[in-house]
């Protein structure tokens, strides 16, 4: 009778330990796979930048070019109008001077703030470049976080035994070199 109880208790204990080991091993494997996923995620973001930004810049430049031609045409037209008037300006009376002056400033005013769409494109380009760089940075950050979780599990007590048994090792963090740590100069 006592033997039976002892056998039952011991077998429950053994099962519990076994379940614990399985649980720890599975969590280590999960962390390692998450780390691999995070590493490939960095590559995904880099490829996105490689594919996206040159196309965007080209599009924006193409549109700006098209608008540059429009702007050139407008400036030409204005200068022609001014040239025609310019020859007579010294001779025309004050009232006409003022009138033509007003007309010219109206013209100039509407030309200074034309509703050009290239603005929106540049704003969008700025946002997209900024966001692409942010995504690359965040993917590296996530890689570091996952590496830290795995290292914690590999080094802290109950799971380091399991990690030793199954040869799950520590992982390195993402490092940069000196050149990349320098402050960039923003010059226009």
């Amino acid at each position: 009778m006592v033997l039976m109880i002892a056998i039952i208790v011991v077998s429950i204990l053994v099962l519990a330990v076994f379940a614990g080991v399985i649980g720890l091993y599975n969590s280590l494997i999960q962390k390692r796979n998450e780390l691999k996923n995070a590493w490939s995620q960095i590559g995904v973001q880099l490829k996105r930048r490689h594919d996206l930004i040159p196309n965007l810049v080209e599009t924006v430049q193409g549109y700006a070019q098209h608008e540059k031609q429009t702007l050139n045409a407008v400036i030409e037209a204005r200068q022609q109008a001014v040239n025609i008037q310019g020859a007579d300006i010294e001779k025309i009376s004050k009232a006409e001077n003022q009138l033509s002056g007003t007309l010219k400033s109206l013209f100039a005013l509407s030309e200074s703030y034309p509703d050009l769409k290239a603005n929106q494109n540049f704003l969008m380009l700025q946002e997209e470049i900024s966001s692409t760089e942010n995504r690359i940075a965040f993917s590296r950050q996530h890689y570091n976080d996952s590496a830290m979780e795995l290292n914690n599990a590999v080094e802290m007590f109950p799971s380091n035994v399991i990690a030793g048994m199954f040869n799950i090792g520590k992982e390195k963090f993402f490092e940069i070199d000196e050149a990349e740590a320098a402050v960039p100069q923003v010059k226009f």
Partner: protein
Amino acid sequence: MVVLFYLVAYSIGVALYITFLMFGEVEINTTLVYHQVNNAGLIALALSNIVILIALPRAENGFIKKHIKEFDAKDLAGIKNKTIGNITEEMCIAAGLAEDLKVYIIESLMPNAYAMSQPNGRSAIFLTTRLLEILDRNELQAVIAHEISHIKNKDANYLTRAFLFVALLNCLSGSDKNNSGGQVRVRSRYGGGGGRRGGAIPPHLLIILLIALIIIFVVGPILSKLIYYSISRKREFLADACAVQYTRYPDGLINALAKIEHFYTNESDSRLYTQIGERQKTYDAFYFFSILSFFTDKKHHCTHPATKNRIDVLKKMGGSGLGDYQDAYKKATGKGLFKNLDIQELMHQDVMVPQTSPEDIAAKLPAGIMLAGAALSEDFKNKIVNKQEINDLRAEINGYITIECDCDTRIKFPDLYKGREMYCPHCLKKHIVEEQENIGENELSKLQ
């Protein structure tokens, strides 16, 4: 931990109940939704709670759709500005979120945000238009990181189940507003108290059973409510900690909390406050900012910690990991935080300022440009001053030649006009278009 408490309490209750039925006749009458229920009804109610818990995942899979329909939420398809989508994507990457996450916008005059997660892997974040008007990019990113950490920790599902438990206990005891209360009558088949007549329940056992009954039906409702609120507050702290871990920038969340609190205490229309609907009370645990705290003095009945406490803890952070948050919490309140939640590793990480933000690039702009609404507001793109600066930027990139006239006008010519003689449009002075040195700030551009 609380799940364990739930299961243990539940099983104790069921066991006691069955014991009563076996050893004595216990009649418990409670008025449930205007009709009397006897023992059989109570068993049915308890069983139906179990059934609800089992069937809940299936029901939960339709919650997001219900919410979209109810609040008329629109997704990001109609918005040309990609900022919100970009911010959400960045935070998903930082959090390692594998789920399918969509952002929806609700038209509202009150800034708020909440997140819902479904068991089938879909989740959604709801933002109001007012929130997008008030916050700038970093703060919006902090709010979205907070919501994503709610999704990652499955707080919505957890709190729903806790709420069911609270509802069950309150229903049974009749402390609901719909019920008029309950009476518990314990009648022993063999007479109460008195002598033993072959098989009677000993009186001390009866008293113990009675005490247990009182605990379940009287203390239970109050205690379960307090536990629910306490869970909600702890989860909010956890979400704050995870948000800072994802963004690595505590100032973003500090500013967001401060701005929204300032809005609710100073700027919002008091008429909006007059009535808190039942719906607001139900979902209050999920919102980013809870206004119920303005209506009650009892701190323990609030689903969110006091905003001042949240900001205090964030300000004292020396790094941006969960371990740093725990240390800051200890400094601010003297208590531990993550003891009974499932955080195994407390992390210590460095604070990083956002790598590139539009604010950094546009640091040359005069103050007040990127005031608010960088994400959504329409008048942002109509601000002439900003447009002018972007025009200048475009001109420089495209190699335009800038000439400064004596009348303080700056004229920009494409390089096609190099060497030609051109007139200033304002004062008609002749200029030859060539590079000028030392163009500094003039009065006109300072005005802009």
